[in-house]
């Protein structure tokens, strides 16, 4: 019987189905566009060259500074160029160890001066999130384990992030751990764009994903007088990546609005369609149909509309899009949103018409 009614009300259901199809196609196209932008951003992250690199040790286990790892630290362009002693990636919180007790072997300092070190160890920082920067005035011996008491996440961050100031001209150079935000950094730039007050370490990353992760890390750090500035140079990040991000954010907002609008439209559409059928609802109730039977009878039609709309939408998407799978979940979300909107209006309509005998008999 439900199917019979759905077929007999074909033009109403077709309008509903077309509505769903339009929303379905729009959402999928938007989703595909967002996915495309994200892919572009990923490619940008992967391919964009930046001004420097992070040096790190892979620390999936407890950090043990073996001679080889120390070698990696000192065999770095950052150490060579900016006096940075080292950074250690920490993959697990428990591997973070206190660095306060560690001092740098003076022999390492000796080795830094004028050393010719190889590059090419950036891959070990490929997915790094947290870094420990070892100040130059700290001492450690080959084979020592870094030990750090881990408290809160904030504490970890504040201990894990740092830089080594390496300006040989400055009195406050050696042994300082430096932190700063980008805004802070900008205040230290000369007109030419070079740091003037300090020859600060320019931590510039192998790709912008690392840079972004690092930037997030230092945001919100509690800067104290004991901490000087870590400098991150990210002009390219600001320009190109931010542009992509703005687009993605915009499109996601539009996507959200489409889904929201679909719920609202489907609600009013169902109200409009079913208003003309309120007498039908009343009659079915007088014939002994229960509230839930009437509700599911009409919901079935809404469901049919959504189903047909999805099928129509899929046909359109297959015809016009190369990648029909992308955004399918969001598209199905539209169908669900449509059914939800219809269900809400149904409850309202069926309740309103369930029912006063006066409605039917007068």
């Amino acid at each position: 019987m439900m199917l019979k009614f759905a077929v007999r009300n074909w033009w109403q259901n077709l309008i509903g189905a077309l509505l769903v199809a339009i929303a379905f196609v729009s959402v999928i196209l938007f989703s595909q566009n967002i996915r495309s932008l994200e892919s572009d951003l990923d490619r940008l992250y992967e391919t964009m060259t930046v001004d420097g690199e992070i040096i790190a040790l892979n620390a999936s286990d407890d950090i043990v500074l073996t001679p080889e790892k120390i070698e990696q630290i000192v065999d770095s362009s950052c150490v060579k160029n900016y006096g940075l002693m080292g950074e250690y990636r920490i993959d697990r919180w428990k591997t973070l160890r206190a660095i306060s007790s560690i001092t740098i072997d003076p022999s390492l300092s000796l080795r830094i001066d004028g050393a010719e070190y190889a590059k090419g160890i950036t891959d070990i920082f490929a997915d790094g999130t947290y870094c420990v920067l070892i100040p130059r005035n700290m001492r450690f011996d080959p084979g020592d384990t870094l030990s750090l008491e881990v408290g809160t996440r904030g504490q970890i961050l504040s201990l894990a992030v740092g830089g080594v100031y390496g300006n040989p001209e400055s009195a406050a150079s050696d042994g300082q751990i430096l932190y700063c935000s980008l805004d802070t950094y900008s205040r230290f730039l000369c007109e030419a764009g070079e740091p003037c007050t300090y020859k600060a370490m320019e931590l510039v990353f192998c790709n912008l994903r690392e840079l972004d992760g690092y930037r997030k890390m230092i945001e919100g750090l509690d800067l104290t007088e004991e901490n000087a500035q870590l400098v991150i140079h990210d002009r390219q990040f600001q320009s190109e990546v931010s542009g992509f991000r703005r687009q993605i954010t915009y499109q996601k907002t539009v996507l959200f609005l489409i889904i929201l609008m679909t719920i609202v439209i489907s609600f009013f559409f169902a109200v409009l369609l079913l208003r003309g059928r309120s007498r039908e609802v009343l009659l079915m109730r007088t014939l002994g149909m229960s509230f839930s039977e009437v509700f599911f009878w009409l919901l079935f039609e809404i469901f049919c509309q959504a189903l047909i709309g999805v099928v129509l939408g899929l046909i359109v998407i297959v015809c016009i899009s190369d990648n029909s799978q992308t955004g399918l979940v969001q598209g199905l979300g539209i169908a669900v949103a449509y059914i939800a909107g219809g269900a809400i209006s149904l409850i309202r309509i069926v309740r309103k018409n369930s029912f006063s005998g006066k409605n039917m008999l007068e």
Partner: protein
Amino acid sequence: MSIISLDSVRYSYKSKYQTVNAVNGISYEFEKGLVYAIVGSSGSGKSTLLSLMAALDFPAEGDVNVDGTSTRSMDCDEYRRDKVAVIYQNFNLLAKLTVLENVELPLELRKTHKTDAAATAKKMLRNVGLDEEYERRFPAMLSGGEQQRVAIARALASGADIILADEPTGNLDEENTEKVADILVSLAHDQKKCVIIVTHDMNVAAKADEVLKMQDGRLV
């Protein structure tokens, strides 16, 4: 024994400016096999009384009892589906269903097998004088009298013992009025239904076994 009884039934509703006592303390008993005509001027509470008996609404005070059970305490959906059928002045057929499908509807609601439902519906249509050629037509293609006969066939198909008819001949010409009234009378006398007709038509009322007059919500 009465199939439906009214026990000091009162019902009022609020209009914009006043509270209207549509049914004002009515007590009465209706029996199977008889035709009752309820007459009275407009606004005397006839249709409201009918809606209370159909369990489309509940009395503010008193009880409508069906086979000794108050409509308040029964499953009203089941009651409307199995025990009572309402025939309306404006027919209330579903425009998108054919004549046969309209008559099958109460049977489908009772989960009757489709083949049986179709057979019963056809039989009921024949009972009200509509032959096979009408079965595939839609209500809009029928005259008023034919539509009302379809509505009666639908009421018959439900197998209900209580037939409530609200101005069933109100939109019909004299010839069709006669036919419909005769069908309703035969339902009571031949099939032992309890037929309660609300009408303004004194010719229809004259065919009833008992005539009840309503005025200001009371039986007089």
